[in-house]
């Protein structure tokens, strides 16, 4: 299954996501930890005072193969989760997403791309981004005439 989806209309994309969410839960066991198509891997964004922390659930990949790029206000992640075992025997269940993924999220605060640190542990990618130096408030002197 191809995880990449590039649709020009965001609302449309959103609608498909909702549909995916609906259909994914049908038939599958209740409480299954999965994401609707197009949203693998799942991301959480946290505000940790002087930095933004993003955690990504992306188990079973080699971190060297993940493409991560951070711009001032967006984060892009792409890569591939391969399914090496595919075709080797008979499947009874296939709930784990596999294939290529590509995700971009918009950050709600500007960050400093030079200071980004990323680590991968137990299948979770953690990206720490220092917030950009806040633009200093500027006082404008008013000349009296």
């Amino acid at each position, binding site marked *: 299954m191809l995880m990449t989806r590039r649709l020009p209309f965001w609302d449309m994309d959103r609608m498909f996501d909702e549909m995916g969410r609906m259909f994914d839960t049908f038939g599958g066991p209740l409480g299954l*930890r999965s994401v609707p198509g197009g949203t693998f891997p799942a991301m959480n964004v946290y505000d940790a*005072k002087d930095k933004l922390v993003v955690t990504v659930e992306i188990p079973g990949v080699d971190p060297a193969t993940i493409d991560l790029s951070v711009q001032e206000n967006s984060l892009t992640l792409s890569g591939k989760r391969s399914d090496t075992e595919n075709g*080797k*025997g008979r*499947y009874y269940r296939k709930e784990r997403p596999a294939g290529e993924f590509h995700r971009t999220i918009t950050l709600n605060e500007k960050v400093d791309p030079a200071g980004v640190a990323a680590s*991968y542990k137990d*299948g*979770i990618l953690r990206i720490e981004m220092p917030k950009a130096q806040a633009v200093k408030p500027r006082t404008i002197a008013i000349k009296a005439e």
Partner: protein
Amino acid sequence: MKDIEKKQQAQITRREERSTFLPATDIWETPEEITLRMDMPGVSKDNLEIKVEGDTLTVHGGVSGDQPGNALYAEQRVGDFHREFSLSDDIDRDKINAALNAGVLTLTVAKAEKVKPRKIQIAAN
């Protein structure tokens, strides 16, 4: 009365804070064995428990609930992983291997000798 309400509220909050999820699982079979592969991001070797009781194989993975800060946006809630599988008689309970690698648990379950396919040589006359 108020105490009871408070207690209930505390219980409700606690339940909302901590959820348990079924790990997404692939199961496939080859003539010799059955493999179960589970996504358990955030589970380390120390927090993983696998046990066989009678016909039930239970996998439980604990996830630390520590959050790095205030959540601004969340696609996944924090919770432990738990899943149970029924084992048939065709499985050799003593031959279950487990490997945890980068948040993916692979369980290899050997089939009992009696159900393994056996090649029968045909003698040519």
